[in-house]
Protein backbone atom coordinates (compact mmCIF):
# COMPACT_ATOMS: atom_id res chain seq x y z
CA UNK A 1 0.00 0.00 0.00
CA UNK A 2 1.19 3.52 -0.81
CA UNK A 3 0.40 6.12 1.91
CA UNK A 4 1.75 9.49 0.77
CA UNK A 5 2.46 11.70 3.77
CA UNK A 6 1.63 15.00 2.11
CA UNK A 7 -1.76 16.66 1.70
CA UNK A 8 -3.16 16.00 -1.79
CA UNK A 9 -6.04 17.82 -3.44
CA UNK A 10 -9.24 15.99 -4.34
CA UNK A 11 -9.41 18.30 -7.37
CA UNK A 12 -7.52 16.36 -10.07
CA UNK A 13 -4.40 15.62 -7.96
CA UNK A 14 -5.42 12.22 -6.58
CA UNK A 15 -6.54 11.11 -10.02
CA UNK A 16 -3.28 12.39 -11.52
CA UNK A 17 -1.41 10.25 -9.01
CA UNK A 18 -3.33 7.23 -10.27
CA UNK A 19 -2.47 8.07 -13.88
CA UNK A 20 1.19 8.44 -12.93
CA UNK A 21 1.17 5.02 -11.25
CA UNK A 22 -0.60 3.48 -14.22
CA UNK A 23 1.99 4.90 -16.60
CA UNK A 24 4.68 3.17 -14.56
CA UNK A 25 2.74 -0.08 -14.50
CA UNK A 26 2.49 0.05 -10.70
CA UNK A 27 -0.73 -0.95 -8.96
CA UNK A 28 -0.49 -0.39 -5.22
CA UNK A 29 -3.55 0.41 -3.13
CA UNK A 30 -3.29 4.15 -2.35
CA UNK A 31 -4.47 5.67 0.93
CA UNK A 32 -4.63 9.46 1.01
CA UNK A 33 -4.73 10.39 4.68
CA UNK A 34 -4.86 14.14 4.09
CA UNK A 35 -7.22 14.78 1.19
CA UNK A 36 -7.63 18.51 0.59
CA UNK A 37 -11.12 19.35 -0.57
CA UNK A 38 -12.08 22.04 -3.10
CA UNK A 39 -12.74 24.49 -0.24
CA UNK A 40 -9.14 24.08 0.98
CA UNK A 41 -10.02 22.09 4.10
CA UNK A 42 -8.40 18.76 4.87
CA UNK A 43 -11.13 16.15 5.17
CA UNK A 44 -11.42 14.09 8.33
CA UNK A 45 -12.26 11.16 6.08
CA UNK A 46 -9.29 9.59 4.24
CA UNK A 47 -9.55 8.49 0.61
CA UNK A 48 -8.63 5.03 -0.61
CA UNK A 49 -8.15 4.55 -4.35
CA UNK A 50 -6.52 1.99 -6.63
CA UNK A 51 -8.07 -0.59 -4.31
CA UNK A 52 -8.82 -2.93 -7.20
CA UNK A 53 -6.19 -1.94 -9.78
CA UNK A 54 -4.28 -5.19 -9.44
CA UNK A 55 -5.78 -8.39 -10.85
CA UNK A 56 -3.54 -10.35 -8.51
CA UNK A 57 -4.87 -8.51 -5.43
CA UNK A 58 -8.48 -8.74 -6.57
CA UNK A 59 -8.08 -12.47 -7.17
CA UNK A 60 -6.57 -12.80 -3.69
CA UNK A 61 -9.57 -10.96 -2.23
CA UNK A 62 -11.77 -13.56 -3.90
CA UNK A 63 -9.71 -16.36 -2.41
CA UNK A 64 -8.23 -17.23 -5.81
CA UNK A 65 -4.50 -17.98 -5.93
CA UNK A 66 -3.94 -17.12 -9.59
CA UNK A 67 -5.85 -14.30 -11.30
CA UNK A 68 -5.61 -16.27 -14.55
CA UNK A 69 -8.09 -18.78 -13.24
CA UNK A 70 -10.61 -16.18 -12.06
CA UNK A 71 -13.18 -16.71 -14.87
CA UNK A 72 -14.27 -20.29 -14.10
CA UNK A 73 -14.01 -19.75 -10.33
CA UNK A 74 -16.03 -16.51 -10.43
CA UNK A 75 -18.67 -18.26 -12.56
CA UNK A 76 -18.80 -21.12 -10.03
CA UNK A 77 -18.94 -18.89 -6.95
CA UNK A 78 -21.69 -16.63 -8.28
CA UNK A 79 -23.53 -19.77 -9.38
CA UNK A 80 -23.66 -20.85 -5.72
CA UNK A 81 -25.34 -17.89 -4.05
CA UNK A 82 -25.53 -17.55 -0.27
CA UNK A 83 -28.48 -15.66 1.20
CA UNK A 84 -27.70 -12.54 3.24
CA UNK A 85 -28.05 -12.26 7.00
CA UNK A 86 -29.93 -9.42 8.68
CA UNK A 87 -28.34 -7.76 11.71
CA UNK A 88 -29.57 -5.05 14.02
CA UNK A 89 -28.40 -1.43 13.95
CA UNK A 90 -26.22 -1.96 17.02
CA UNK A 91 -24.26 -4.61 15.14
CA UNK A 92 -23.89 -2.47 12.04
CA UNK A 93 -20.68 -0.43 11.97
CA UNK A 94 -22.03 1.61 9.07
CA UNK A 95 -24.65 3.08 11.42
CA UNK A 96 -22.22 4.12 14.15
CA UNK A 97 -22.67 7.75 13.07
CA UNK A 98 -26.08 9.00 11.90
CA UNK A 99 -26.59 12.42 10.32
CA UNK A 100 -30.22 13.36 9.73
CA UNK A 101 -32.21 16.52 9.11
CA UNK A 102 -30.12 19.67 9.43
CA UNK A 103 -27.00 17.60 10.16
CA UNK A 104 -26.94 16.19 6.64
CA UNK A 105 -23.95 17.54 4.73
CA UNK A 106 -22.48 15.81 1.70
CA UNK A 107 -19.60 18.27 1.96
CA UNK A 108 -17.94 16.13 4.62
CA UNK A 109 -17.27 13.43 2.02
CA UNK A 110 -13.99 14.02 0.15
CA UNK A 111 -15.46 13.32 -3.30
CA UNK A 112 -13.04 13.86 -6.18
CA UNK A 113 -13.18 16.07 -9.20
CA UNK A 114 -11.26 13.66 -11.41
CA UNK A 115 -10.99 14.82 -15.01
CA UNK A 116 -11.04 17.93 -17.11
CA UNK A 117 -14.65 18.60 -18.22
CA UNK A 118 -16.09 17.03 -15.03
CA UNK A 119 -18.23 19.89 -13.70
CA UNK A 120 -17.60 19.11 -10.03
CA UNK A 121 -16.93 16.44 -7.43
CA UNK A 122 -18.36 13.00 -8.10
CA UNK A 123 -18.91 9.91 -5.99
CA UNK A 124 -17.53 7.20 -8.26
CA UNK A 125 -17.84 4.10 -6.08
CA UNK A 126 -21.36 4.74 -4.83
CA UNK A 127 -23.45 1.59 -5.13
CA UNK A 128 -27.06 2.54 -5.71
CA UNK A 129 -29.58 0.13 -4.21
CA UNK A 130 -33.20 0.49 -5.31
CA UNK A 131 -36.10 -1.94 -5.46
CA UNK A 132 -38.78 -2.99 -7.88
CA UNK A 133 -42.05 -1.60 -6.46
CA UNK A 134 -43.98 -4.52 -7.99
CA UNK A 135 -41.98 -7.37 -6.44
CA UNK A 136 -39.93 -5.70 -3.70
CA UNK A 137 -36.76 -7.27 -5.14
CA UNK A 138 -33.74 -5.00 -4.78
CA UNK A 139 -31.02 -4.18 -7.28
CA UNK A 140 -27.55 -2.75 -6.78
CA UNK A 141 -25.24 -1.09 -9.29
CA UNK A 142 -22.49 1.49 -9.28
CA UNK A 143 -23.82 4.87 -10.30
CA UNK A 144 -21.87 8.08 -10.48
CA UNK A 145 -23.19 10.93 -8.34
CA UNK A 146 -22.40 14.61 -8.81
CA UNK A 147 -22.44 16.32 -5.40
CA UNK A 148 -24.37 19.54 -5.98
CA UNK A 149 -25.06 20.77 -2.46
CA UNK A 150 -25.33 19.79 1.20
CA UNK A 151 -28.21 17.46 0.55
CA UNK A 152 -28.55 17.23 -3.23
CA UNK A 153 -26.81 15.22 -5.91
CA UNK A 154 -27.62 14.16 -9.42
CA UNK A 155 -26.90 10.58 -10.40
CA UNK A 156 -26.99 8.66 -13.64
CA UNK A 157 -28.73 5.30 -13.83
CA UNK A 158 -27.96 4.33 -17.44
CA UNK A 159 -31.23 4.09 -19.41
CA UNK A 160 -30.95 0.31 -19.90
CA UNK A 161 -30.09 -0.33 -16.24
CA UNK A 162 -32.30 -2.13 -13.73
CA UNK A 163 -32.09 0.85 -11.34
CA UNK A 164 -33.44 3.11 -14.09
CA UNK A 165 -36.28 0.62 -14.63
CA UNK A 166 -37.13 0.69 -10.92
CA UNK A 167 -37.07 4.49 -10.89
CA UNK A 168 -39.39 4.69 -13.91
CA UNK A 169 -41.81 2.30 -12.20
CA UNK A 170 -41.99 4.48 -9.09
CA UNK A 171 -42.39 7.61 -11.17
CA UNK A 172 -45.13 5.96 -13.26
CA UNK A 173 -46.99 5.33 -9.98
CA UNK A 174 -46.66 9.03 -9.15
CA UNK A 175 -44.10 8.40 -6.40
CA UNK A 176 -40.58 9.58 -5.67
CA UNK A 177 -38.06 6.74 -6.01
CA UNK A 178 -36.31 5.55 -2.84
CA UNK A 179 -32.56 5.12 -3.36
CA UNK A 180 -29.71 4.28 -1.02
CA UNK A 181 -26.09 4.76 -2.03
CA UNK A 182 -23.45 2.87 -0.09
CA UNK A 183 -19.70 3.27 -0.40
CA UNK A 184 -16.79 1.06 0.62
CA UNK A 185 -16.64 -2.66 1.38
CA UNK A 186 -14.49 -5.75 0.94
CA UNK A 187 -13.44 -6.02 -2.75
CA UNK A 188 -15.22 -9.38 -3.07
CA UNK A 189 -18.50 -7.73 -2.08
CA UNK A 190 -17.87 -4.93 -4.57
CA UNK A 191 -17.37 -7.58 -7.25
CA UNK A 192 -20.54 -9.37 -6.22
CA UNK A 193 -22.46 -6.23 -7.07
CA UNK A 194 -20.99 -6.49 -10.57
CA UNK A 195 -22.52 -9.93 -11.14
CA UNK A 196 -24.65 -9.72 -14.27
CA UNK A 197 -28.14 -10.79 -13.22
CA UNK A 198 -31.64 -10.86 -14.62
CA UNK A 199 -34.45 -8.52 -13.62
CA UNK A 200 -35.59 -8.41 -10.91
CA UNK A 201 -32.81 -10.24 -9.08
CA UNK A 202 -30.95 -9.19 -5.92
CA UNK A 203 -27.16 -8.99 -5.84
CA UNK A 204 -26.84 -9.77 -2.13
CA UNK A 205 -26.73 -13.55 -2.59
CA UNK A 206 -24.12 -13.26 -5.36
CA UNK A 207 -22.02 -11.20 -2.93
CA UNK A 208 -22.45 -13.97 -0.36
CA UNK A 209 -21.34 -16.56 -2.92
CA UNK A 210 -18.18 -14.61 -3.57
CA UNK A 211 -17.26 -14.04 0.06
CA UNK A 212 -18.27 -17.57 1.01
CA UNK A 213 -20.59 -16.48 3.83
CA UNK A 214 -23.84 -14.52 4.21
CA UNK A 215 -23.44 -10.80 3.54
CA UNK A 216 -24.43 -8.86 6.66
CA UNK A 217 -27.24 -6.42 5.93
CA UNK A 218 -29.01 -3.87 8.10
CA UNK A 219 -32.29 -2.05 7.43
CA UNK A 220 -31.70 1.46 6.12
CA UNK A 221 -32.72 4.29 8.45
CA UNK A 222 -35.14 5.83 5.97
CA UNK A 223 -36.68 2.80 4.30
CA UNK A 224 -36.32 0.04 6.91
CA UNK A 225 -36.30 -3.45 5.44
CA UNK A 226 -37.53 -2.22 2.06
CA UNK A 227 -33.93 -1.26 1.32
CA UNK A 228 -31.23 -3.08 3.24
CA UNK A 229 -27.67 -1.84 3.23
CA UNK A 230 -24.41 -3.69 3.88
CA UNK A 231 -23.80 -3.43 7.62
CA UNK A 232 -20.04 -3.35 7.08
CA UNK A 233 -19.95 -0.63 4.43
CA UNK A 234 -18.08 2.60 5.16
CA UNK A 235 -20.67 5.26 4.26
CA UNK A 236 -24.39 5.18 3.38
CA UNK A 237 -26.43 8.01 1.82
CA UNK A 238 -30.21 7.59 1.86
CA UNK A 239 -32.90 9.60 0.09
CA UNK A 240 -35.26 9.98 -2.83
CA UNK A 241 -35.12 10.71 -6.53
CA UNK A 242 -38.04 13.14 -6.85
CA UNK A 243 -40.52 12.24 -9.55
CA UNK A 244 -39.75 13.56 -13.04
CA UNK A 245 -37.05 15.98 -11.88
CA UNK A 246 -34.12 15.98 -14.29
CA UNK A 247 -31.07 18.22 -14.31
CA UNK A 248 -27.90 18.48 -16.36
CA UNK A 249 -25.22 16.00 -15.24
CA UNK A 250 -21.72 15.73 -16.67
CA UNK A 251 -19.71 15.74 -18.84
CA UNK A 252 -18.03 12.92 -16.95
CA UNK A 253 -14.87 10.89 -17.59
CA UNK A 254 -16.11 7.41 -18.47
CA UNK A 255 -14.79 3.86 -18.45
CA UNK A 256 -14.13 4.21 -22.18
CA UNK A 257 -11.24 6.58 -21.43
CA UNK A 258 -13.22 9.44 -22.97
CA UNK A 259 -15.31 12.12 -21.36
CA UNK A 260 -18.98 11.19 -21.72
CA UNK A 261 -21.44 13.92 -22.71
CA UNK A 262 -23.67 15.97 -20.46
CA UNK A 263 -27.00 14.19 -19.93
CA UNK A 264 -30.37 14.92 -18.36
CA UNK A 265 -30.19 12.95 -15.09
CA UNK A 266 -32.40 12.41 -12.04
CA UNK A 267 -31.57 14.32 -8.89
CA UNK A 268 -31.38 12.87 -5.40
CA UNK A 269 -32.40 14.53 -2.16
CA UNK A 270 -30.64 13.19 0.92
CA UNK A 271 -32.61 12.23 4.02
CA UNK A 272 -29.80 10.66 6.01
CA UNK A 273 -26.08 9.89 5.99
CA UNK A 274 -24.68 7.10 8.13
CA UNK A 275 -21.06 6.01 8.46
CA UNK A 276 -18.46 4.23 10.49
CA UNK A 277 -16.68 6.18 13.23
CA UNK A 278 -13.43 5.94 11.26
CA UNK A 279 -14.90 5.81 7.80
CA UNK A 280 -12.70 5.66 4.70
CA UNK A 281 -14.03 7.07 1.44
CA UNK A 282 -13.51 4.74 -1.55
CA UNK A 283 -12.98 6.28 -4.97
CA UNK A 284 -12.74 4.50 -8.32
CA UNK A 285 -10.60 6.27 -10.90
CA UNK A 286 -13.22 6.43 -13.61
CA UNK A 287 -11.81 4.76 -16.71
CA UNK A 288 -8.67 3.80 -14.80
CA UNK A 289 -7.54 0.27 -14.10
CA UNK A 290 -8.98 0.13 -10.57
CA UNK A 291 -12.42 0.66 -12.02
CA UNK A 292 -11.98 -1.68 -14.98
CA UNK A 293 -10.37 -4.67 -13.28
CA UNK A 294 -13.19 -5.79 -10.95
CA UNK A 295 -15.87 -5.24 -13.57
CA UNK A 296 -13.86 -7.00 -16.26
CA UNK A 297 -13.11 -9.95 -13.99
CA UNK A 298 -16.83 -10.22 -13.27
CA UNK A 299 -17.44 -10.13 -17.03
CA UNK A 300 -14.97 -12.95 -17.48
CA UNK A 301 -17.07 -15.11 -15.18
CA UNK A 302 -20.26 -14.21 -17.00
CA UNK A 303 -18.82 -14.77 -20.49
CA UNK A 304 -17.27 -18.04 -19.34
CA UNK A 305 -20.69 -19.30 -18.24
CA UNK A 306 -22.42 -18.13 -21.43
CA UNK A 307 -19.87 -19.62 -23.81
CA UNK A 308 -19.21 -22.82 -21.87
CA UNK A 309 -22.89 -23.69 -22.32
CA UNK A 310 -22.46 -23.95 -26.09
CA UNK A 311 -18.73 -24.69 -26.35
CA UNK A 312 -17.59 -27.13 -23.63
CA UNK A 313 -13.97 -26.98 -24.86
CA UNK A 314 -13.68 -23.38 -23.59
CA UNK A 315 -11.03 -23.29 -20.89
CA UNK A 316 -10.56 -19.62 -20.03
CA UNK A 317 -11.62 -16.02 -20.72
CA UNK A 318 -9.73 -12.74 -20.33
CA UNK A 319 -11.38 -9.32 -20.63
CA UNK A 320 -8.29 -7.09 -20.82
CA UNK A 321 -8.40 -3.65 -19.22
CA UNK A 322 -6.66 -2.17 -22.27
CA UNK A 323 -9.76 -3.09 -24.30
CA UNK A 324 -11.95 -1.25 -21.79
CA UNK A 325 -14.97 -3.59 -21.61
CA UNK A 326 -15.14 -4.21 -25.34
CA UNK A 327 -12.72 -7.09 -25.97
CA UNK A 328 -12.63 -10.67 -24.75
CA UNK A 329 -10.00 -13.30 -25.38
CA UNK A 330 -11.20 -16.88 -25.14
CA UNK A 331 -9.11 -20.03 -24.94
CA UNK A 332 -10.16 -23.42 -26.25
CA UNK A 333 -8.64 -26.85 -25.82
CA UNK A 334 -9.32 -29.43 -28.54
CA UNK A 335 -12.61 -27.92 -29.73
CA UNK A 336 -15.01 -30.03 -31.77
CA UNK A 337 -16.09 -29.02 -35.27
CA UNK A 338 -17.89 -25.66 -35.22
CA UNK A 339 -17.38 -25.22 -31.49
CA UNK A 340 -15.08 -22.19 -31.69
CA UNK A 341 -17.48 -20.29 -33.92
CA UNK A 342 -20.40 -21.29 -31.69
CA UNK A 343 -18.49 -19.87 -28.74
CA UNK A 344 -17.51 -16.70 -30.58
CA UNK A 345 -21.11 -16.09 -31.64
CA UNK A 346 -22.40 -16.61 -28.10
CA UNK A 347 -19.84 -14.15 -26.73
CA UNK A 348 -20.78 -11.49 -29.28
CA UNK A 349 -24.33 -11.60 -27.96
CA UNK A 350 -23.05 -10.33 -24.61
CA UNK A 351 -24.00 -6.66 -24.68
CA UNK A 352 -20.73 -5.12 -23.60
CA UNK A 353 -18.43 -7.02 -25.92
CA UNK A 354 -17.54 -5.70 -29.36
CA UNK A 355 -14.64 -7.93 -30.40
CA UNK A 356 -13.85 -11.49 -29.37
CA UNK A 357 -10.82 -13.58 -30.23
CA UNK A 358 -10.46 -17.34 -29.84
CA UNK A 359 -7.02 -18.87 -29.34
CA UNK A 360 -5.48 -22.27 -28.62
CA UNK A 361 -4.29 -23.39 -25.22
CA UNK A 362 -0.62 -22.72 -26.03
CA UNK A 363 -1.30 -18.96 -26.20
CA UNK A 364 -1.07 -16.88 -23.02
CA UNK A 365 -4.38 -14.99 -22.87
CA UNK A 366 -2.88 -12.50 -20.45
CA UNK A 367 0.03 -11.49 -22.68
CA UNK A 368 -0.87 -9.21 -25.58
CA UNK A 369 2.33 -10.07 -27.44
CA UNK A 370 1.15 -13.70 -27.47
CA UNK A 371 -2.28 -12.60 -28.71
CA UNK A 372 -0.66 -10.61 -31.51
CA UNK A 373 1.46 -13.65 -32.38
CA UNK A 374 -1.70 -15.75 -32.74
CA UNK A 375 -3.42 -13.10 -34.86
CA UNK A 376 -0.35 -12.70 -37.06
CA UNK A 377 0.18 -16.40 -37.73
CA UNK A 378 -3.12 -18.26 -37.35
CA UNK A 379 -5.66 -16.09 -39.15
CA UNK A 380 -6.69 -15.68 -42.76
CA UNK A 381 -9.05 -12.77 -42.43
CA UNK A 382 -11.75 -13.63 -44.95
CA UNK A 383 -11.88 -17.22 -43.67
CA UNK A 384 -11.41 -16.72 -39.94
CA UNK A 385 -13.18 -13.48 -39.05
CA UNK A 386 -16.80 -12.45 -39.25
CA UNK A 387 -18.82 -9.40 -38.31
CA UNK A 388 -22.41 -9.10 -37.15
CA UNK A 389 -24.19 -5.74 -37.35
CA UNK A 390 -27.13 -4.66 -35.24
CA UNK A 391 -26.17 -6.20 -31.90
CA UNK A 392 -26.69 -4.47 -28.57
CA UNK A 393 -23.71 -2.67 -27.06
CA UNK A 394 -22.40 0.39 -25.30
CA UNK A 395 -23.42 3.61 -26.99
CA UNK A 396 -20.62 5.35 -25.08
CA UNK A 397 -18.31 3.83 -27.69
CA UNK A 398 -17.01 6.95 -29.50
CA UNK A 399 -16.82 5.11 -32.82
CA UNK A 400 -20.56 4.50 -33.16
CA UNK A 401 -22.54 6.47 -35.70
CA UNK A 402 -24.61 9.37 -34.37
CA UNK A 403 -28.08 8.15 -33.48
CA UNK A 404 -27.07 4.48 -33.63
CA UNK A 405 -28.83 2.16 -31.20
CA UNK A 406 -26.78 -0.93 -32.01
CA UNK A 407 -23.19 -1.83 -32.84
CA UNK A 408 -21.16 -3.71 -35.40
CA UNK A 409 -19.20 -6.54 -33.74
CA UNK A 410 -16.37 -8.79 -34.83
CA UNK A 411 -15.19 -12.29 -34.01
CA UNK A 412 -11.82 -13.79 -34.89
CA UNK A 413 -10.93 -17.47 -34.84
CA UNK A 414 -7.17 -17.47 -34.20
CA UNK A 415 -6.99 -21.18 -33.45
CA UNK A 416 -5.10 -23.77 -35.47
CA UNK A 417 -6.82 -26.81 -37.01
CA UNK A 418 -6.86 -29.98 -34.94
CA UNK A 419 -4.90 -33.14 -35.81
CA UNK A 420 -6.66 -35.23 -38.51
CA UNK A 421 -6.67 -38.29 -36.23
CA UNK A 422 -5.89 -39.01 -32.57
CA UNK A 423 -2.15 -39.13 -31.91
CA UNK A 424 -1.25 -37.44 -35.23
CA UNK A 425 0.37 -33.99 -35.35
CA UNK A 426 -1.70 -30.96 -36.35
CA UNK A 427 -1.24 -30.03 -40.00
CA UNK A 428 0.62 -26.85 -39.02
CA UNK A 429 4.27 -26.04 -38.29
CA UNK A 430 5.47 -26.45 -34.67
CA UNK A 431 6.36 -23.33 -32.69
CA UNK A 432 10.04 -22.52 -32.40
CA UNK A 433 11.14 -23.45 -28.90
CA UNK A 434 14.23 -24.42 -26.93
CA UNK A 435 14.43 -27.23 -24.36
CA UNK A 436 13.03 -26.46 -20.89
CA UNK A 437 16.38 -27.37 -19.36
CA UNK A 438 18.12 -24.74 -21.50
CA UNK A 439 15.56 -22.15 -20.44
CA UNK A 440 16.22 -23.00 -16.78
CA UNK A 441 19.96 -22.64 -17.35
CA UNK A 442 19.41 -19.25 -19.05
CA UNK A 443 17.38 -18.04 -16.09
CA UNK A 444 20.27 -18.98 -13.78
CA UNK A 445 22.76 -17.03 -15.89
CA UNK A 446 20.56 -13.93 -15.61
CA UNK A 447 20.07 -14.26 -11.87
CA UNK A 448 21.67 -11.36 -10.05
CA UNK A 449 22.66 -9.49 -13.24
CA UNK A 450 22.27 -5.72 -12.98
CA UNK A 451 19.65 -5.02 -15.68
CA UNK A 452 18.89 -1.42 -14.72
CA UNK A 453 20.71 0.09 -17.72
CA UNK A 454 19.54 -2.48 -20.27
CA UNK A 455 17.12 -1.14 -22.90
CA UNK A 456 13.59 -2.50 -22.70
CA UNK A 457 12.50 -1.20 -26.12
Amino acid at each position, binding site marked *: MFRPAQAISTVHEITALQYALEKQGRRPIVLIEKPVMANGKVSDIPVVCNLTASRALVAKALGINDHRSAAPIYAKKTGNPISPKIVSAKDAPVQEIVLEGASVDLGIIPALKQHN*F*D*PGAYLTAAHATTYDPDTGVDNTAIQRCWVKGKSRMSYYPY*PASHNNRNMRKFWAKGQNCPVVFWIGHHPAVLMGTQAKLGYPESHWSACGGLIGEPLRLVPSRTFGDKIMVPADAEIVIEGYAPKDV*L*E*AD*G*PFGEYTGY*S*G*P*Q*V*AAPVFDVTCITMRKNAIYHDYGSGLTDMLVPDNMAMEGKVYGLVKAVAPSLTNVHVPAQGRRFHAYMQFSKPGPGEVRDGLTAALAYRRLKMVIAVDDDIDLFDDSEMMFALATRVQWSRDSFTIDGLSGSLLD*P*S*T*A*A*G*AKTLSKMAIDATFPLPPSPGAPSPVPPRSTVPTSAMAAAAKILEGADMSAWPTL
Partner: protein
Amino acid sequence: MSKPNIENIPAGASWEKTGNTSWTQCPGCKGWFHVGPGILNRPEVKLHCPHCSKDFAQADAARIIRAG
Protein backbone atom coordinates in the same frame (compact mmCIF):
# COMPACT_ATOMS: atom_id res chain seq x y z
CA MET B 1 -36.56 23.24 -38.21
CA SER B 2 -33.23 24.15 -36.61
CA LYS B 3 -32.92 27.17 -34.35
CA PRO B 4 -30.37 29.76 -35.48
CA ASN B 5 -27.83 28.68 -32.86
CA ILE B 6 -27.98 25.01 -33.86
CA GLU B 7 -25.80 23.67 -36.64
CA ASN B 8 -26.39 20.09 -37.73
CA ILE B 9 -23.53 17.99 -39.04
CA PRO B 10 -24.87 16.46 -42.23
CA ALA B 11 -24.93 12.67 -42.33
CA GLY B 12 -22.55 11.13 -44.86
CA ALA B 13 -22.52 7.82 -46.62
CA SER B 14 -22.64 4.77 -44.36
CA TRP B 15 -18.91 4.15 -44.87
CA GLU B 16 -17.91 7.68 -43.91
CA LYS B 17 -17.01 8.57 -40.32
CA THR B 18 -19.02 11.52 -39.05
CA GLY B 19 -18.60 11.26 -35.26
CA ASN B 20 -21.34 10.99 -32.70
CA THR B 21 -20.77 13.83 -30.27
CA SER B 22 -22.64 17.12 -30.12
CA TRP B 23 -20.99 20.24 -28.68
CA THR B 24 -22.38 23.36 -27.03
CA GLN B 25 -20.75 26.75 -26.55
CA CYS B 26 -21.48 28.53 -23.29
CA PRO B 27 -22.98 32.01 -23.77
CA GLY B 28 -21.03 33.21 -20.73
CA CYS B 29 -17.40 32.07 -20.93
CA LYS B 30 -17.62 30.85 -24.56
CA GLY B 31 -16.16 27.49 -23.45
CA TRP B 32 -17.19 24.39 -25.38
CA PHE B 33 -18.51 21.21 -23.81
CA HIS B 34 -20.13 18.04 -25.13
CA VAL B 35 -23.77 17.10 -24.64
CA GLY B 36 -25.75 13.92 -25.29
CA PRO B 37 -28.74 13.59 -27.60
CA GLY B 38 -31.06 12.98 -24.64
CA ILE B 39 -30.53 16.38 -23.07
CA LEU B 40 -30.75 18.16 -26.43
CA ASN B 41 -34.16 16.54 -26.88
CA ARG B 42 -35.27 18.09 -23.57
CA PRO B 43 -35.13 21.86 -24.01
CA GLU B 44 -36.75 22.32 -20.59
CA VAL B 45 -33.58 21.00 -18.90
CA LYS B 46 -30.99 23.75 -18.55
CA LEU B 47 -27.47 23.05 -19.72
CA HIS B 48 -24.61 23.52 -17.25
CA CYS B 49 -21.25 24.86 -18.31
CA PRO B 50 -18.49 22.78 -16.67
CA HIS B 51 -16.02 25.61 -17.19
CA CYS B 52 -17.80 28.56 -15.52
CA SER B 53 -20.81 26.79 -13.87
CA LYS B 54 -23.35 28.92 -15.73
CA ASP B 55 -26.77 27.32 -16.23
CA PHE B 56 -28.49 28.29 -19.45
CA ALA B 57 -31.30 27.24 -21.74
CA GLN B 58 -30.43 25.62 -25.05
CA ALA B 59 -31.96 28.55 -26.86
CA ASP B 60 -29.42 30.83 -25.17
CA ALA B 61 -26.37 28.75 -26.14
CA ALA B 62 -23.83 30.67 -28.20
CA ARG B 63 -23.69 27.71 -30.58
CA ILE B 64 -24.76 24.08 -30.67
CA ILE B 65 -23.14 21.74 -33.15
CA ARG B 66 -25.33 18.69 -33.32
CA ALA B 67 -24.16 15.29 -34.52
CA GLY B 68 -26.76 13.07 -36.13
